């Protein structure tokens, strides 16, 4: 009786550890999606900055805000794009750190699942 109860406890433990592992893997997948999105945005903004840098001082810059094309100051547009690039780079670094942490946790959870499994078997 006590051995079957102990077995059930071990199985429940294994299940909960496996669930933890699955959750971490889902988080890692979500972080990878986010990272992809940020990388694309960063690339696009850097392209825009390059084009803006090629412009001369008096050239006209317009920004599409909704259905309206608004004339912008070249310096202001430059500043805006630079700020966006800074923000996206910071977010990208944050996501990378999160992925790194989660991968470490994933490995330790995997080990925990393995030890749980070996206890049952």
């Amino acid at each position, binding site marked *: 009786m006590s051995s079957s109860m102990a077995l059930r406890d071990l199985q429940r433990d294994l299940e909960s550890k496996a669930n933890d592992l699955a959750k971490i893997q889902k988080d890692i997948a979500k972080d990878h999606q986010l990272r992809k999105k940020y990388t694309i945005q960063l690339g*696009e*903004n850097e*392209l*825009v900055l390059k*084009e*803006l840098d090629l*412009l001369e001082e008096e*050239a*006209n*810059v*317009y*920004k*599409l*805000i909704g259905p309206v*094309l608004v004339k*912008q100051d070249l310096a202001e*547009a430059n500043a805006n*794009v630079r700020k*966006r690039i800074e923000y996206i780079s910071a977010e990208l670094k944050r996501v990378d750190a999160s992925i790194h942490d989660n991968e470490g946790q994933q490995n330790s959870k995997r080990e925990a699942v393995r030890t749980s499994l070996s206890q049952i078997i």
Partner: protein
Amino acid sequence: MAASSSARGELEKMGIDQLKALKEQADLEVNLLQDSLNNIRTANARLESAAGALNDLSLRPQGKKMLVPLTASLYVPGTLDEADKVLVDIGTGYFIEKTMEDGKDYCQRKINLLKSNYEQLFEVLAKKKSVADEAGMVLQGKVRQLQAATTS
């Protein structure tokens, strides 16, 4: 050739399950790369047609009668104003006014950039494809070996 035979040695050492997983992974990556290559080709085609339209526009004299699209099915008669200035969409909602020359130059630059990206991706795809094919062949060989061992 030396590189592929040492890679082959690695593949031979792996178990059937590992080989299958590796092949599936490589196939997935090949598909992703193919999709990216297709996207680049589409974008390039759009840029080329934009460059063609620009060239055409530069030939038209100012004041020429034209039809301006208001919606996909509604056109309004108008006259062509100065064809020397063009608005270029550079991304993230920004447009810059450029001369016809600069506009054509912009299109050409983007086309060149995409072409070089395409070539880089193509090389990566070729390498991944050869890995996937090698894995597939080694896998088939092993499966056949296993079948021969179990039946004899």
